[in-house]
């Protein structure tokens, strides 16, 4: 285990940036979101959650994967290789780190999504424990431990005031640590003790959170029973179908495929899409989801029933972003509670 003094931050950002692309929570116009670091940016590692999850780094919002040229008869296709260097994603919270594994379950199963796989393999993920979980957090409902390194991260870090504790957990994490070891010191006995204190404090705080008692297991019964539940009418009533919840959600992975052309040449790209939109499932002979109720139900059935049936875990990490961002104050916590029978 190492410690990295916060006064060394500018130096290490610079150093990492020489060898990798570096993504950090960056503050701009009062908003904090993950973005590629450049000299002079305001890094904000205090903000608990970025407004949008960092999934954009592993699954870009828009990504070109094919170039084409067509004269109406002859067609040429060329797959586009992403030009990204190896990257370091620094300061990922436990919930978001777990969400990467959930997207992996979809994109890395056969047939493997090569674009995603390549990007994913290029990343070294440094997590940052949540010293101050807040009122909309309910990661513990999904057995996520914000005081520990989430499965899949390469380095785990904890904020100890004027320094961070730095613990490589994978080989990639070791490599990163070795590269910048001259900026770090070995952790002392006292640092170790402080870590345990911090972890215990986080555990206590998590227990006290207002949403700590949210439990998706209250949703019981057969798929069809849950699907046909009366509560969907009432829950979906106010939903505007704006799709905000799907864009900010770290586990939503739906995408669209579009062609963009100028003259004979063009590109094919994929971009995030939302099951909350009315055209998502539109076909020539009709639309299986014509009402907002059906679309709303799809989003939450996917997170709470369909995905678990297919992958063995819920597709929510309790980040609470949908609680903060929905314009009509609807969210997965309300859905879980109502499906579980709460008034």
């Amino acid at each position, binding site marked *: 285990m190492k410690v990295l003094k916060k006064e060394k931050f500018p130096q290490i950002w610079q150093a990492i940036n020489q060898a990798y692309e570096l993504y950090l929570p960056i503050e701009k116009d009062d908003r904090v979101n993950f973005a590629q670091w450049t000299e002079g940016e305001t890094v904000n590692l205090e903000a608990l959650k970025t407004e949008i999850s960092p999934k954009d780094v592993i699954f870009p919002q828009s990504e070109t994967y094919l170039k084409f040229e067509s004269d109406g008869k002859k067609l040429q*296709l060329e797959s586009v290789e992403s030009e990204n260097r190896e990257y370091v994603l620094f300061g990922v919270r436990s919930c978001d780190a777990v969400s990467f594994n959930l997207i992996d379950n979809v994109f890395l199963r056969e047939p493997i999504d090569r674009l995603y796989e390549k990007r994913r393999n290029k990343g070294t993920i440094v997590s940052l424990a949540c010293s101050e979980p807040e009122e909309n957090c309910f990661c513990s409902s999904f057995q996520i431990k914000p005081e520990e390194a989430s499965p899949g991260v390469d380095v785990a870090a904890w904020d100890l005031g004027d320094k961070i504790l730095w613990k490589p957990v994978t080989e990639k994490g070791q490599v990163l640590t070795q590269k910048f070891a001259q900026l770090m010191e070995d952790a002392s006995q006292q640092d170790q003790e402080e870590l345990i204190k911090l972890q215990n404090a986080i555990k206590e705080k998590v227990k006290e959170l207002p949403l700590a008692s949210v439990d998706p297991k209250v949703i019981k019964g057969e798929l069809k029973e849950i699907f046909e539940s009366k509560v969907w009418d009432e829950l979906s009533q106010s939903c505007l179908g704006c799709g905000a919840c799907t864009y900010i959600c770290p586990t939503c992975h739906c995408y669209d495929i579009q062609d963009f052309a100028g003259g004979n040449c063009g590109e094919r790209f994929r971009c995030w899409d939302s099951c909350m939109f009315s055209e998502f499932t539109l076909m020539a002979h009709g639309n299986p989801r014509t009402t907002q109720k059906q679309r709303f139900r799809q989003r939450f059935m996917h997170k709470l029933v369909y995905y678990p049936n297919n992958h063995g875990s819920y597709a929510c990490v309790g980040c609470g972003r949908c609680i903060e961002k929905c314009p009509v104050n609807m969210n997965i916590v309300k859905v879980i509670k109502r499906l579980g029978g709460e008034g």
Partner: protein
Amino acid sequence: MSCSCHGHVDPLVPKIAVIEHIRKDTPDVTTFRVVNPAGGKSFTSLPGQCAMISVPPIGEAMFSITSSPTEENFLELSIKKCGIVTEYLHGLEVGSEIGIRGPYGNNFPVNDELKGKDLLFIAGGIGLAPLRSVINYIMDKRDDYGKVDIVYGARTPDDLVHKEDIFNNWPNRLATNVFLTVDRECEGWDGHVGFVPQYIKELGLDTNKVVLICGPPIMIKFVLQGLEEIGFKKEQIYTTFELRMKCGVGKCGRCNIGDKYVCKDGPVFRLDEIQRLPDEY
């Protein structure tokens, strides 16, 4: 420049195919025969599987492979004009190049549950396309299967697809019956008139067979009702679904019915499997 090595290429990247032959089946359905630029099939498939066809810069759309897997030299797709991709495809000529990727989805269990059985095929309109792949497969391995009944309906005689097969090839095969019907009386048509579900009841078929259905959702719904009334069990009936598709590989999240992705877990389902899924298709 085109990518022939598909090992590390993303599944979304199509390869090139050339249109070798075009046949106009009906005013709005055309059957395209496609091959590799160097000759041969783009890929091997099983009866019921689909291919994603790309026509940049217009886009992509999913189609059933209507040729039999026993057809060694090409793939065929019967395409109904109903939107921008299909419209563009209908404007192409022999020699035009398109993109193709696949095969996608599961298949009718020709080597398992269908083996040795009497089979009843029920199709409406362009719905004959995926079933034709099975029928021709079976015709090529005729001894492995029992009696074959084919009930096929369209709005008008002009809308019947694969006319060579339904009028000439199949009726002349051993133990094979073809029953055709059109929705309304029509000049020059002396065959059956009426909707497919009603025709099925009138035919008085015995129920000791496996049924394969494909057609417009409304037809499928009524046919299923009718079959159960006659005494068919859900375990004997297979059908296919059509939902909006983009990726074809179970990732874009577009084509699910409950916890099943039609592009990957379907498009072929046995009726008893559908029973536990929500009625959202």
